[in-house]
């Protein structure tokens, strides 16, 4: 009980405190301390769930099982490391005059608010609250993306707001349809939207309604996940927002949106008893892997490049969950974890690289290695990891996804391999030039926080070589829920 209250309450309280003092010199420390406290409470919650199994909180409005507790822990971890990274990063931005003190206060407060909405979305048992939290997450991130108030960032934020607003409205219609189907069985008290209630009765839910609901839900939450052809907002939002925001958008928000789809998929599978939801996810997933691969080589902005790479990986994860079965589901969960860790690490390195060069244009960032070996290596290793090089964890999960695809859907394998190959060629080439080559970049005024980069990459490396037994148990249990 108290753990969940802490997990959800800490970011909220920190956000309120930072709304008052977020412009002060020590605000970044408060931000980091709040995130650390959230991480500790998430760890406590996790150990409690591991010991006692799934639990309900607050009149069953919140529900924590192995599937979401693992995402809660991941969210809290990446949130904490991002707050560490943002301390020197935002200080440099402030010194460069890109941000006023008022904007800094908005940033700090909204960062914590964003964490809070994501944690609510992950832990709630009520599909309606899930929707409300997702929409609130959109609103907070719109403010974060528009933080610099440049024409490009306003454009990105507007696009993000409109596209995700429309998308998520479709998800609301899907939720209403689920409620419509459930209400006939559960009655119209508050219970008919509780996921656990729905899940226990999922065989009785009306199939036609549920299949229509799922179409709306996958389009709605899929917009937030960045599934092609609803991905247009994503590269802009990643490129124009401050880099810590790109890191949490890519590393966390996309996962949370995907989590919402997975929860709904479980219900729809039960009601339909066919592979309808799976096939839909596979189709969206495959399209989302292939299309961005061909956009990658045309990118000139480093953050847009990695934004497209995030879309591709989300497609891969959606495809994995679409295939279903124990191996693919574990692979999907593992890929969610390693992608979050790697992509946020890359954004940390990219953020500082862009600050050193004073631009985000790839051609103008050269020779990172000579000026700052740690940033250079961080970016290089991160890129290798995200491209699926062994021995990093991304390789393991991609390997598992591909082998499952060979076994059950052999026709998809060449398409996947081809897309991954194209992505490798276009990204590696660009990053190589940035890291090696003659330096055009200048050293930074403040010491960058690179511990998070190497902490994340270390974890990804570990997950590639050895998955701790409790973690693999956890993945297996969660995969069982997904089916």
């Amino acid at each position, binding site marked *: 009980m108290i753990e969940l209250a802490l997990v959800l309450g800490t970011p909220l309280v920190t956000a309120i405190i930072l709304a008052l003092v977020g412009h002060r010199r020590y605000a970044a420390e408060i931000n980091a301390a709040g995130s650390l406290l959230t991480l500790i409470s998430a760890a406590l919650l996790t150990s409690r769930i591991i010991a006692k199994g799934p639990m309900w909180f607050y009149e069953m409005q919140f529900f924590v099982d192995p599937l979401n507790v693992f995402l809660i822990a991941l969210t809290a971890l990446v949130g904490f490391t991002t707050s560490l990274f943002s301390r020197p990063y935002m200080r440099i931005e402030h010194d460069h005059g890109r941000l006023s003190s008022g904007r800094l206060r908005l940033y700090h407060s909204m960062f914590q608010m964003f964490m809070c909405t994501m944690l609510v979305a992950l832990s709630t048992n009520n599909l309606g609250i899930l929707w409300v939290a997702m929409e609130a997450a959109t609103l907070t991130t719109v403010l974060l993306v528009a933080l610099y108030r440049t024409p490009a960032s306003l454009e990105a934020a507007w696009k993000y707001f409109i596209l995700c607003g429309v998308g998520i409205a479709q998800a609301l219609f899907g939720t209403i349809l689920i409620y419509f189907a459930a209400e006939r069985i559960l009655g119209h008290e*508050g219970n008919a939207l509780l996921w656990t209630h729905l899940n226990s009765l999922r065989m009785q839910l009306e199939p036609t309604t549920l299949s229509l609901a799922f179409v709306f839900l996958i389009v709605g939450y899929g917009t937030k996940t960045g599934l092609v052809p609803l991905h247009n907002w994503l590269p802009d939002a990643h490129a124009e927002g401050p880099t810590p925001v790109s890191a949490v958008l890519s590393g966390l928000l996309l996962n949370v949106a995907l989590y919402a789809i997975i929860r709904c998929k479980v219900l729809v599978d039960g009601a339909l008893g066919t592979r309808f939801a799976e096939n839909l996810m596979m189709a969206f997933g495959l399209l989302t892997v292939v299309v961005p691969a061909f956009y990658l080589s045309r*990118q000139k902005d480093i953050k847009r490049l990695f934004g497209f790479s995030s879309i591709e990986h989300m497609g891969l994860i959606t495809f994995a969950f679409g295939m279903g079965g124990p191996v693919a589901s574990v692979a999907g969960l593992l890929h969610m974890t390693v992608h979050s860790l790697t992509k946020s690490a890359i954004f940390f390195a990219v953020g500082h690289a862009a600050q050193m060069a004073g631009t985000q244009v790839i051609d103008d960032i050269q020779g990172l290695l000579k000026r700052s070996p740690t940033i250079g290596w961080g970016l290089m290793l991160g890129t290798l990891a995200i491209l699926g090089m062994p021995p990093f964890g991304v390789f393991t999960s991609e390997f598992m996804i591909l082998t499952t695809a060979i076994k059950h859907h052999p026709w998809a394998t060449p398409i996947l391999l081809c897309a991954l190959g194209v992505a490798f060629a276009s990204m590696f080439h660009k990053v190589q030039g940035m890291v090696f080559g003659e330096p055009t970049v200048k050293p930074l005024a403040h010491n960058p926080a690179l511990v998070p980069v190497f902490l994340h990459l270390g974890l990804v490396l570990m997950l590639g070589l050895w998955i701790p037994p409790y973690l693999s148990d956890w993945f297996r249990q969660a995969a069982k829920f997904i089916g």
Partner: protein
Amino acid sequence: MTLAYLTSSAFASQLINLCAAILLLLGFAMLAQRRVLSLINLFMMQGLVLCTSTLIVAITTHQPHLYWSAGLTFLLKVLALPYILHRLIRRLSVKWDIETLLNIPTTMLIGIFLVIIAFNVAQPISLLSGTITRATIGIALACVLLSFLMMITRSKAVPQVIAFLAMENALFFAATSATYGMPMVVELGIALDVLVGMVILAVFFFQIREQFDSLDIRHMEKVHEE
């Protein structure tokens, strides 16, 4: 017409169908309306119809939380949001703006096509509905699609936002008429999100105009085409 008939569910369902029809008509009216000021008035009327239909469902089904829902709709969609929008267009001095480059006949034809699609999609579900208002889910879906179309065809920021809010209205209508309303906590959450979103957008409008000297979205789409 006796009193018994007036409170019967048959009469109520007639009334709700009437509301649904008006809502659809307003959807088309918004699609064809070029003036920003008239759009806001249409949006307000939509809110009023929504509020009325919620009230009718509340009276016939004796669901206490639907009275709250109707009150909330009235406060938010008939008073607060139109007030904010009116203030906004006055301060942005776009009150008498007329949108050009809008082929109304074509848009209307596409709109009719969308309504047919919506009815077809919703038909199997409407047959299942045990509530007093079975046909309305198709109309609600049609209204969602019409707002969607309006968003695509408009290039100015304020009409786009009104289209967005109209979509929210249609969804609310689906929730109340087809299912007797969502749980109260969810409705409150949605209302809060809409309100906060509106406030954020209002701030945005000023910044967009400051940066682009215009509220025309087409001015924004220049850099990132790929």
